């Protein structure tokens, strides 16, 4: 793992303003499934009070990493430390009690009994008294907005509701470590924000959160640090601004006058004024969109000024894909070392 191969920034331990106590530390963790390398020497740490996003496309190794931390999968090599305990996985009962886990699938409940009864059951297995379990179950159901559905059988819950119930179960014991695997995958925006807010609250109260996701927008608004995995390798580790700084956006989507675009004259004029600075091409639709490709070193202002100078009306301008998407693609489309 060289500095060049990995875009591990020097910012790894800076900038969050969070307590420095490390809740989880993985060192060179490896895991294979037959010939498939799921994790290849992955190292990361999550501090208490920190939301650490585990980003990556399908098959990157996010779920495997989380399962290794839960103890459901044993690593082939490397070292894991959870709350100061060295292990190959948190198999001890005490550690299991301090981990809240939201699995990626939605099949993890007893479907014939209600959401409330499911939570009560798991609360009791975490050692709560009957009264505590009932009170805490209601509290958690309220926090994920499932109070009304509390007494309905989980079998009739939607995917989104089961996901919320799963989050409610994970926070039953106010665990100091939350492992969340694609929690917002099936949720509508409102429910997503609610779950993120709950996770953020838990982090505020000192919980360490490892949040696996494919949703880039989530990482931008939410995470303190990011580890980007691709085919079991760490491609980036650092803060969100550092991830954004990985690429310079060169393509912008412009909204122009529809008639001008339709006639095609706008592209001739643009070619004349942009010269080597870039090129303006027709968008995929007929709604007046065009894509401005800028050459390396040319700033957006210069390109826009040239187009406006040629009498082209620019109604709106935005990055063709977000800086986050660009960074994601840049890092995951490089060849695996």
């Amino acid at each position, binding site marked *: 793992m060289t500095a060049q191969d990995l875009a591990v920034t020097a910012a790894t331990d800076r900038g969050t303003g969070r307590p420095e106590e490390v809740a989880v530390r993985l060192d060179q963790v490896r895991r294979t499934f037959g010939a498939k390398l799921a994790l290849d020497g992955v190292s990361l740490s999550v501090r208490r009070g920190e939301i650490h996003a585990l980003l990556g496309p399908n098959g990157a190794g996010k779920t495997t990493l989380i399962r290794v931390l839960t103890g459901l999968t044993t690593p082939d090599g490397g070292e894991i430390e959870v709350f100061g305990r060295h292990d190959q996985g948190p198999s001890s009962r005490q550690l*299991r009690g301090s981990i809240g886990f939201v699995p990626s699938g939605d099949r993890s409940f007893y*479907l014939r*009994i209600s959401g409330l*009864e499911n939570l009560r059951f798991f609360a*009791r297995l975490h050692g709560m008294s009957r009264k505590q379990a009932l009170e805490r179950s209601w509290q958690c159901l309220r926090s994920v907005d499932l109070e009304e559905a509390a007494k309905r059988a989980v079998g009739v819950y939607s995917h989104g509701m089961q996901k919320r119930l799963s989050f409610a179960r994970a926070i039953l014991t106010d665990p100091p470590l939350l492992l969340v695997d694609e929690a917002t995958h099936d949720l509508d925006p409102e429910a997503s924000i609610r779950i993120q807010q709950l996770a953020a609250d838990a982090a505020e109260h000192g919980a360490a959160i490892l949040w696996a996701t494919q949703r880039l927008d989530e990482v931008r608004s939410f995470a303190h640090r990011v580890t980007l995995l691709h085919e079991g390798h760490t491609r980036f580790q650092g803060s969100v601004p550092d991830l954004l700084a990985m690429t310079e956006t060169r393509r912008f989507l412009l909204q122009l006058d529809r008639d001008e675009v339709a006639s095609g004259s706008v592209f001739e004029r643009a070619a004349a004024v942009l010269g080597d600075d870039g090129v303006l091409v027709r968008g995929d639709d007929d709604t007046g969109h065009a894509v401005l490709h800028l050459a390396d070193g040319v700033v957006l202002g210069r390109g826009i000024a040239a187009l406006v100078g040629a009498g082209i009306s620019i109604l709106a301008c935005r990055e063709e894909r977000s800086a986050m998407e660009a960074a994601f693609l840049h890092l995951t489309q490089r060849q695996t070392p």
Partner: protein
Amino acid sequence: MIRVPERRLAVMRAELRKMPAFLRRDLLTEWSYRLAFVLDWGGLIVQALIFAAVQGIVDPSAIPSFEGRQASYLEFAAIGIALSSFMGIALARVYSVFRQEQVQGTLESLLLTPTAFTTMQLGSVAYDLLYVPIRTAIFFAFTTAALGTSFRWSGLGPALAVLVVFIPFVWGIGILAAAWTITFKRGTGVVGIFITLLTIGSGTYFPITVLPGWARSMAQLSPLAIALDAARGSLIGGADWAQVVPAVAILAPCALVSFFVGSVAFRAALSRERRRGTLGLY
């Protein structure tokens, strides 16, 4: 006197406190299948009536006597049914609950709670352990009141002693079957065949004297046959505590070995699945 360290005792108490949670979960689940719940009770009555009808066609002299008392076929079969019901919990339920948890995706969620495997196993059959004795008692009450069977209730204590050493024996086999299921995902048919052979070949529904010579020799070695014989001796013939000691002396070491082997195999199966990362697969 054996001294259990205070910390260990506290853990055991904490684990025991989890039992009602399993009981409540399974009661609610069973109750959610209301029709099946009702049909089970209906089935119990039908079962008693069928055996009463069979009694009419069985030669009474073919049924052995216990402690000098000639048993009726229904009395003979009722004890076989009761004991095989307990065997069903300890063997089939123990292994099938893990399979069920695996299939419905709850096994991993269970394993992530700070709960001991033993608690999970016991908890998963707690409902049956409570339900089956009630069901059996009602079965006996019905056959006594409506079909004229007669049992020596003074033999209930010795019969329970036999049950106490017999259950861990089949429990161990149940855990072994659970280990098999967790590892190979399939193979429930093998357990079904085993239960059927054991039930039929051990004198549950008819005396082993009607079996061919070779099968009779094998049946005499079957722990189920030993347990059945002792239980019938107590409940039909009124055998006392001393008379069940030989059966208990044979069954107790069998139970220890079976339970030990089952537990080791189960832990090994879980550990293997964790290594392979296939615990949740089915």
